[in-house]
C-alpha cells in the first residue's frame, strides 16, 4: 500500500468548488510546520474520520426532521414546529429523549448479543461513507475497488438485524428477524446485478472513476440518460429502498402487524442506534445511486459538492414520498417481486448495455425500447399476482 502525502496549500486553486479540499489542505499545512511527515498522514486520516463521524449522525438527525416535515405536508398538516423555529431543535430533543430512556433488557434475553446487535449495525453504516464521493477530490478514501467494498459492507447489515431479533427471545421479534433476513438477502442480488452495467461502461470499480466517466458535454453525460441507465437506476433505487427497510418494503418493522418487528425489545440508546443506522443507510444508498447513475458531482456551473448534495436530497425526498404514499408489501409478494420480476429485468439490462457498447445512436434507442417492451410485457403476464383484476359492482334497487 502506498502512503501518499496529502496535498498542501501550494498546489490547489482557490475556488468555491475546492472549498473543503482547500480547508483541509490549509489545516494540514498549519500542522506541517511542527509535525513530521508520517504524522501528517495520520492527521489527514483523523480529519476525514472526524468529519465523517460528525457528519453521519448530524445528517441522520436532520433527515428525521425532514422526513417528519415532508410527510406532514403531504398529509396536510405542519410537521413538528414547536421546538425551535420550524422544529429545527426537534432532533436534539429526540436525542435527549433517547439518551435518558431506561434501558430495558428482557429477562431471558442473550445479553451479550443483545448489546452487540445495535453496535454491529451502526459500524457498517458509517463505513460506507468512506467511498462516497461528496465532490471533486472529496472522496474520503479513494479505493480502486470502491464499489465492491460498498456492496460487501452493505451486506453486513443483515447479520446484526438477525442477531437483534434472535437475542430478544420474543416471538414477534423472531418473525420480524426472519422476514428481514429473507428480504435483505433477496434484494442484494438485483442490486448487485443492476450495478454491473455501470461497471461495464466505466471499466472500473472505483467510485471516483465512475463519476469521471460521466463527464461530457456540459458535464451532463450522466448514465441515466441512456436506456440501460434508466432501467438500472429504477431497479437500483427500489432495491436500495428495500435494503434500508423503508416503506413500502418495511415489513421488518411493520408497525401495524408485529408492533415493531426486530426492534420491539429495544429501548433507549440501543433503539437510537438502530434508528440511526437505518437513516444513515438511506443517505448513503441514495449517495451511491447518485454516484452510479446520476453523475455524482458532475454538473455545470455550480460547485461539485452542491450538485452532489442537491441530487442526494432529491432522491431522499423521493424515498420520503414513497413512505407517504404506499401501503406495504406482504412477504410473499416482496420475495416474488425481487426474484421473479427484478432479477430477470437486471439480466435483460445487461444485454441492453452490451448493445449500447457497440452503438449509441437512435437505432440503439429503438432496439432497446423494443427489447424492454417485450420483456416487460412477458414478465407482467407471467407474474399474474401483481396485476389488478377488474371488478364489476352491481347496483340493485
Amino acid at each position, binding site marked *: 500500500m502506498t502512503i501518499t502525502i496529502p496535498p498542501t496549500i501550494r498546489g490547489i486553486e482557490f475556488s468555491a468548488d475546492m472549498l473543503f479540499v482547500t480547508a483541509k489542505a490549509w489545516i494540514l499545512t498549519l500542522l506541517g510546520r511542527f509535525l513530521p511527515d508520517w504524522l501528517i498522514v495520520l492527521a489527514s486520516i483523523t480529519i476525514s474520520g472526524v468529519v465523517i463521524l460528525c457528519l453521519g449522525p448530524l445528517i441522520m438527525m436532520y433527515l428525521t426532521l425532514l422526513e417528519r416535515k415532508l410527510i406532514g*405536508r403531504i398529509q396536510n398538516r405542519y410537521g413538528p414546529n414547536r421546538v425551535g423555529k420550524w422544529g429545527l431543535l426537534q432532533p436534539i430533543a429526540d436525542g435527549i429523549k433517547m439518551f435518558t430512556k431506561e434501558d430495558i433488557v428482557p429477562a431471558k434475553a442473550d445479553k451479550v448479543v443483545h448489546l452487540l446487535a445495535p453496535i454491529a449495525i451502526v459500524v457498517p453504516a458509517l463505513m460506507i461513507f468512506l467511498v462516497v464521493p461528496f465532490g471533486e477530490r472529496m472522496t474520503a478514501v479513494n479505493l480502486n475497488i470502491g464499489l465492491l467494498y460498498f456492496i460487501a459492507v452493505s451486506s453486513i447489515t443483515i447479520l446484526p438485524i438477525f442477531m437483534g431479533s434472535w437475542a430478544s427471545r420474543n416471538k414477534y421479534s423472531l418473525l420480524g428477524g426472519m422476514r428481514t433476513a429473507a428480504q435483505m438477502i433477496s434484494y442484494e442480488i438485483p442490486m448487485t446485478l443492476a450495478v454491473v452495467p455501470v461497471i461495464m461502461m466505466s471499466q472500473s470499480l472505483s467510485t471516483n472513476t465512475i463519476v469521471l466517466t460521466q463527464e461530457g458535454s456540459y458535464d451532463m453525460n450522466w448514465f441515466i440518460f441512456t436506456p440501460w441507465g434508466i432501467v438500472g437506476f429504477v431497479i437500483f433505487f427500489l432495491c436500495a429502498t428495500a435494503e434500508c427497510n423503508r416503506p413500502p418494503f418495511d415489513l421488518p418493522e411493520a408497525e401495524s402487524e408485529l408492533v415493531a418487528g426486530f426492534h420491539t425489545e429495544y429501548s433507549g440508546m440501543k433503539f437510537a442506534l438502530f434508528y440511526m443506522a437505518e437513516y444513515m443507510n438511506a443517505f448513503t444508498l441514495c449517495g451511491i445511486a447518485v454516484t452510479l447513475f446520476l453523475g455524482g458531482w458532475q454538473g455545470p456551473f455550480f460547485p461539485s459538492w452542491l450538485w452532489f448534495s442537491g441530487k442526494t436530497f432529491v432522491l431522499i425526498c423521493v424515498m420520503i414520498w414513497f413512505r*407517504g404514499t404506499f401501503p406495504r408489501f406482504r412477504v410473499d409478494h416482496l420475495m416474488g417481486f425481487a426474484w421473479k420480476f427484478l432479477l430477470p429485468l437486471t439480466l435483460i439490462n445487461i444485454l441492453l448495455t452490451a448493445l449500447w457498447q457497440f452503438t449509441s445512436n437512435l437505432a440503439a434507442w429503438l432496439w432497446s425500447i423494443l427489447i424492454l417492451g417485450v420483456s416487460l410485457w412477458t414478465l407482467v403476464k407471467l407474474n399474474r399476482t401483481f396485476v389488478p383484476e377488474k371488478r364489476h359492482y352491481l347496483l340493485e334497487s
Partner: protein
Amino acid sequence: MTLFGWGVLKGMGVTFKNFLTSYFRKPDEGGIFTVQYPEEREGTAENYRNFPFLVYDGAPEKIRCVACGICERECPPKCIHIEMELDAAGKPARKPAVFDIDYGLCMNCGMCEEVCPFDSIFMDHAFEVAAPERQIGLVRHKKELLKSNEYFREIRPALASAIDQKRKAVEEKKKAAAQPASSQSSGGTGSL
C-alpha cells in the same frame, strides 16, 4: 391506462398535489387547517354542550334554582348533589345550600338542562377545566357554578334571549293578574 405501475404513479401524483397545495391554498380548500392551539383558538358553536353551570339574574344571591332536586334525580351518572337551605324556622327556603357537581362523573349528556322547570341549569362552553386532583379540583361547588345571565346571553344568545322573553311574559302576566286584585282590595278598604 392499464400499464403496469400506472396506479402507483397516479397515487404519487395525488400526494404530490397535496404537498403543493398545502403551501398555497386556504384551509377550506385543501390547505393546512391546523389551528395552533393555544395561540389561536377556534370558537365553539352555540349549541356546544360541555359541563353544566347555574344561572343568576343580577346578583349571585338572586339564583334561579329552587333546589327542587329534579336534575339530581334525572342525572344518569348521578353526579349532582343538592341540599335545600333551611331558613331560621327550619322550613325549606327555596334555595340550595349545597349544590355540587362532580365534573369527573358528568358525561355532558344535557339531561339536567332538559328537565329543569325553572331555567336555572344550562350547559356551559368552557372546556379548559383540568385540575391536578380529582376530588379537589373537579368537584365544583355552588359558588364556582354560579354564572350571571349576561354570561349566559354571551355564550348562547338565541336560547338566552328566548328564555328571557318567556320569563318576562310570565312576569307581565303575574303583574297583570295581581293588578285587578289590588284595585279590588283598595276599593274594598275605600268603601269601608
